[in-house]
């Protein structure tokens, strides 16, 4: 979600609410007999409001599950999630009198809350910058969940191109053009491979291409992690340049296709990494948020009892 001008009302509200509650806390701190505490009237007010904001922030998940509910636009909920969730942190700090909690439950709550807030802030930053970066740097972006399927499609495509290339290098005349046919005919025959010799290729070159496919290209297209030389654009360019030395010029378009495949695969890898950054924090943020809400409810019940 972009943090843009549309957030201004939320920002103003949050800053105002923070200022009011901060001033209230300062007064409460100076007047409270035993020092500020979560169990005092003001402490309970701060805790209740803070928890209400947390619950509201947690309801975003539910809102997303039921997009047809007429309870406000999802973007509004998202902004509320962001700003009220953030505002709940200082409110809870006021509730806890800036203590990290000394009891097992209260300390756990504060640690979880800090993790949730930090991961949320990190997520907001990522969501602000990474989508733009992804648009710039990933040309052929696909659906994240389909990356593996597309990767396998790229592999199939590469296998076909390499097979064609090897066939051409091994003398399959269907791969040559008119000019080459003329050159080949004038060059005479040599061991039954008239056309191939006219192309300037032989079995050795085909082996080189085959080996390149098996040792470099295939592992690169199959891999999801780890480093392959082809994962680096410069190294890949060098390797393809070396192949061009071995392979006749008229087959270079096939090499260009393979190089394009590698480019696309690198783009998918880049998309995967960016996606992990863009959404990986949710693996921390969401589960811990639910745990936090559950434990905070228990904390509230027992705090009211005692």
């Amino acid at each position, binding site marked *: 979600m972009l943090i843009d001008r549309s957030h201004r009302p939320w920002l103003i509200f949050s800053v105002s609410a923070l200022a009011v509650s901060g001033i209230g806390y300062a007064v409460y701190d*100076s*007047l*409270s*007999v*035993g*020092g500020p*505490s*979560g*169990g005092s009237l003001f402490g309970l007010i701060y805790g209740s409001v803070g928890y209400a904001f947390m619950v509201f922030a947690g309801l975003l998940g539910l809102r997303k599950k039921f997009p047809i509910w007429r309870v406000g636009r999802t973007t509004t909920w998202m902004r509320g999630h962001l700003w009220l969730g953030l505002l709940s942190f200082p409110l809870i700090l006021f509730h806890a009198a800036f*203590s990290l*909690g*000394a*009891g*097992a*439950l*209260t300390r*756990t709550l504060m640690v979880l809350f800090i993790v949730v807030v930090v991961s949320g802030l990190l997520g907001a930053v990522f969501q602000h910058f990474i989508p733009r970066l992804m648009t710039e740097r990933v040309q*052929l972006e*696909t*659906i*994240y*969940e*389909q990356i593996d*399927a*597309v990767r396998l*499609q790229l592999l199939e*495509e590469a296998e076909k191109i390499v097979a064609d290339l090897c066939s051409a290098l091994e003398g399959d005349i269907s791969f040559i053009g008119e000019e080459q046919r003329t050159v080949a005919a004038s060059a005479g025959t040599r061991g039954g491979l008239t056309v191939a010799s006219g192309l300037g290729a032989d079995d050795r070159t085909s082996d080189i291409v085959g080996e390149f496919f098996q040792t470099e290209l295939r592992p690169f297209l199959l891999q999801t992690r780890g480093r392959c030389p082809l994962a680096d654009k410069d190294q890949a360019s060098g390797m393809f340049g070396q192949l061009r030395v071995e392979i006749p010029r008229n087959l270079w*378009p096939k090499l*260009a*296709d393979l190089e*394009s*495949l590698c480019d*696309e695969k690198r783009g998918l890898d880049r998309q995967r990494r960016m996606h992990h950054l863009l*959404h990986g924090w*949710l*693996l921390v943020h*969401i*589960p*811990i948020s*639910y*745990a936090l*809400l*559950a*434990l905070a409810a*228990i*904390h509230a019940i*027992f*705090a*009211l*009892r*005692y």
Partner: protein
Amino acid sequence: MPRIRTAKSVAKRIDLQYFARLHPFRRWKLWLSIGLPVLALGWILAVNAVGHQKVYSPGPVSEAHAVFGDRCGLCHLSTGSFRAPVVDAACQACHQAPAHNQRQTFTPACSSCHVEHRGTIRLAATADNACAQCHADLKSNDGTQRFDGHVSGFDRHHPEFSALRSGHDPGTMNLNHYVHLQPTLRGPAGAVQMKCDDCHRPLNVDEPWPYSVAVVQPASQQPVAVGPTGAQQRKRRSVEAGPGAYMTPIKYVNQCAACHVLQFDPLIAAPAPHSKPEQVHAFIVQKLTEYVAANPAVLNSDPVAALAYNDEGPRNFLRPLGESTEPRNIVRPLQNALPRAQSATEWVQVRTAQAEKLLWSKNCHVCHQATEGGGEGLPTSVQAIIPSRWFPHAEFDHEQHRMMSCISCHSRIPQSRLTADINVPGIELCRDCHKQGGRTVSAAPGGCFECHSYHDWRNEKRMEGTLDLTKLRGIHPAGTENASSLPAASGTAK
């Protein structure tokens, strides 16, 4: 044909049913979103199952209560409803803390001042606000006002100490500190330079007094053991005032006797006791009677010459301070020649009169502010008052301030010549070190409780304990499992 990639061609490769199957990323998110809250709730249920209520505690209890820190129900008494707050009755089961003042307009709840679950703090260390809720705008239930009504803290509107406000020392003894600190004083064994702790020592110092009666009369008299005075000794204090908090009260035999010898007659070695005039009179008569019985020839000697003092040793009390230490004879300033005594009784009468004249008019008068004529010609001493506590409503601990020199606080002492001089330091001096905020402002603590006790422990009542180990710790001590079957035990249980 070169390979051409467009968004459309790429989109065509997408399996349109991909969302029907959960991608590992979404799967992880789902399972973690279920698993983590379940784990958290499982933790709470598990600790609940083993009765470990401490998990709900907002923080560790104070050191004094740590022994039953797991027994929430000891303090959190159920009110019959859902709530189980800490009520005063729970505190008063162990602490018979007396009320603060008869005239206070309300009594705050114990837990509002003694805030628990804040770790190993002293619960007596209450916040200033606890005191200020009344003292910032003090009211009494009878409308009278005995104290400053607008005190918010040590730094905020605390008045000057009452001893200084009164303007004079209520003591009735003559004491010139300036003179006593001069370097030319004559002590029992020559010139002395007195120090503060020659006379003023905390109660817990157990060392011989350098100018006690033992110096001049080792055999006949001994210094007395002096404990705290009633004002110094209280049943209990909320404020930690150790045994060295207060100075040992001044006693003649301990601090004065070596120099201010009460010799009444040059013929009698023993000095008069430092006692009531009647007892002194009886002592003099007895000693002179014994002397004349043992030395009848004294009746024939020159009565004036017999009254001359050989100014040696301890009998030098008449030497003016600061004068030469050359030996000399001091003759009583008799205006008229003494008649020779005709009998031992007359001799005793004459000499007793002379001795008492000397004692009453000179020796006693040096220290005792005034004497008045009493019955049988004996004076009546004004009651000797030496304040032993200067802060009647606060505690001060000299031991805690032992790193300071006496003069650094009692700075007016070297120049103090009058008993009426107030030599306790003013509040501003205390504020140089003690500030509200204490260590947070790199200062000594300046909270109200540092000096003042809320509870008037003088009114503390003895209480009978009602707890046992089972209630306190939840354990059955070894050998008591079957105690309930014993007649005595069952009787106790009732």
